[in-house]
């Protein structure tokens, strides 16, 4: 299949677009032009890729998970080790890319939203490296459950602003970041942390993360002489997943699975399984699937993982879901926490709770695979930041 989205206007099928106040339209037009320029600018590309190599630590490894493979006794399992990126997750690929863009555009002030804090830390890190003023919006509830990342951001010189409106999580942090952007649009660049937001953000963020899939392709071809049979990644907004999937989309032999956070279950109201139970709507600047009630009011998502606790999803995922190129499933809090333990035990890797959602799907997938097949899980982040939640979850339970 030929895969060419988004359109010039920023649509993935019917999803995407620019649903923003008039004030932001000039900023988006300026951003589109600046981004397009960098695509053909060898100096920009070299600087970006040099930073990925020498600062972020790319290419990240592709590790054969021998004990997990033995445990399931079916297909071979590999892990794409985004947890080994500087700052502990894939988010920095995009933060560095957008920061270079901001610098080229002459913006002096950076803002970002963060859920789990990984994007906030990545942005604060990039700002420290380049000497930019940095303001991070974070929900008060997330600041509590990801305190370590709050401390990291502050140490890196960022101002972390607590958001107390709404659910006090990622959705509300994003609202507040957009309000800041609307107010300070002249000098401020908004580094969006996922493949959400108005065009060109979903496309741009995807392209800054495609290095994950590009490397995986090269690495698996070298190790196995072919492309993998299955790719699995967790999906909140969906940035690690889209970066991982994108270079494989045209090869229809590669089956792709996106894992949403089902919270207490996709059949309860305590869930973040947007594609599983949501319907199309507009949030944060683009049309995609949403969790919202009959009146179009956004519903509060729930997930034990702050990074997946979001009632929307990137428009490209909505499109890939509709055309059935990627299949999306929900994993509950409980299943994810079991996977945290399993992967720690079997591979000596403590995954982020977000990432553990992808691992949890192995329980369902592996029995259906063949021994000569290859599964790659995108190990999108490490779990150090989650130790408080993990300890509380397992306290009193037998480890």
């Amino acid at each position, binding site marked *: 299949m030929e895969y060419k989205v988004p359109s010039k206007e920023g649509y993935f099928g019917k999803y995407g*677009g620019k*649903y*923003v106040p*008039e004030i932001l339209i*000039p900023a988006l037009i300026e951003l589109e032009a600046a981004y397009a320029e960098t695509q053909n600018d060898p100096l920009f590309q070299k600087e970006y890729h040099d930073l990925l190599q020498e600062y972020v630590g790319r290419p990240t490894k592709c590790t054969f998970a021998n004990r997990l493979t033995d445990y399931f006794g079916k297909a071979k399992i590999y892990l794409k080790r985004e947890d080994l990126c500087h700052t502990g997750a894939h988010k920095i690929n995009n933060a560095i890319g957008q920061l270079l863009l901001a610098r080229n555009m002459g913006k002096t002030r950076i803002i970002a939203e963060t859920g789990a804090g990984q994007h906030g830390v990545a942005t604060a890190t990039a700002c420290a490296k380049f000497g930019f003023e940095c303001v991070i919006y974070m929900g008060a509830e997330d600041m509590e459950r990801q305190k370590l990342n709050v401390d990291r951001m502050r140490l890196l010189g960022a101002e972390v602003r607590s958001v107390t409106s709404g659910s006090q999580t990622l959705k509300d942090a994003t*609202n507040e970041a957009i*309000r800041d952007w609307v*107010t300070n649009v002249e000098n401020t660049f908004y580094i969006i942390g996922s493949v959400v937001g108005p065009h060109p953000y979903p496309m741009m963020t995807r392209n800054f993360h495609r290095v994950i899939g590009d490397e995986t392709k090269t690495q698996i071809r070298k190790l196995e002489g072919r492309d993998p049979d299955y790719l699995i990644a967790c999906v909140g907004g969906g940035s690690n997943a889209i970066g991982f999937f994108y270079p494989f989309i045209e090869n229809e032999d590669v089956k792709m699975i996106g894992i949403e956070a089902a919270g207490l279950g996709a059949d309860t109201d305590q869930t973040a399984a947007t594609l599983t139970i949501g319907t199309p709507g507009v949030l944060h600047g683009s049309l995609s699937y949403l969790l919202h009630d009959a*009146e*179009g009011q956004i519903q509060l998502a729930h997930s034990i993982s702050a990074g997946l606790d979001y009632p929307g999803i990137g428009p490209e995922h909505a499109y890939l879901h509709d055309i059935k190129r990627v299949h999306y499933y929900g994993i509950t809090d409980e299943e994810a926490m079991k996977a945290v333990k399993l992967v720690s035990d079997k591979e000596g890797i403590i995954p982020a709770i977000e990432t553990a959602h992808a691992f949890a799907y192995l329980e369902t997938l592996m029995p259906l695979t063949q021994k000569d097949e290859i599964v790659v899980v995108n190990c999108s982040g490490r779990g150090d930041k989650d130790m408080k939640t993990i300890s509380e979850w397992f306290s009193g339970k037998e480890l």
Partner: protein
Amino acid sequence: MKPRIEKLFENRKDDQKVMSLFITAGYPDLNSTVDLVLGFEENGADIIELGMPFSDPLADGPTIQFASNRAIENGITMSAIFGMVKEIRKSSEIPIVLMGYINPVLRYGTEQFCKDASESGVDGLIIPDAPIEVSAELAIEAKKHNLNLIYLVAPNSTDERMKQIDQLSSGFVYCVSVTGVTGARDGDEIARSVVRFIDRVNQNVTDNPKLVGFGIRNHKDAVTISAKLDGFIVGSALIDTIRNRYPDPDWFNHTMDFVKDLKFGKIEHQK
């Protein structure tokens, strides 16, 4: 019958500024909206912008966020809003514009929404997060159901874009006085930055009447900022007035005094 908004601007005298008031439907409670609107009209309002509350109002400051949340808690629905408009229409011909975010409109169904709005007696729509790029369907349905679709221009809109917005708008053009979210501001802050913007608006927006909004707190702000335009819009300062007094027994009369002051100035109407 002539469209109400068109008629209003045709009959406007040069020295009279049109005053448009924004109130969130269902705030401060579901039963007050109709009385508030009728009271606003009696005390000098020329257009009513009835806010359709949304859970995530990302172009709004704290005041309208608060009012939206309260209205949602009060149980506001789209059909309740249409019911309010029908009730108002029993005794008033004041132009009513629904203002809100695109998601509740899409959820209701754009076509059905325009049909029901029109049948209830709504005159126009302002959907700030549906700029001209993404509102083709809305524009078609609005036109089909005789609703004015009012777009916004901002200080950073280019001349070319202002012209385009003018062409696609009907009823009036909403001029956002400052880059930022809604909310009352220091009058001087607005006055300083707004002069050049308003000159550009007058050069480029020539088909439609022009109302200016965002940040206006009182009569003095209003007359200063709208001097070269057709009128002004007040929202947050009005809601703040209600919020400071509600539910004291005199909250309603107090609000109406504020509206009168806004339109005519404190000194004049006290004489």
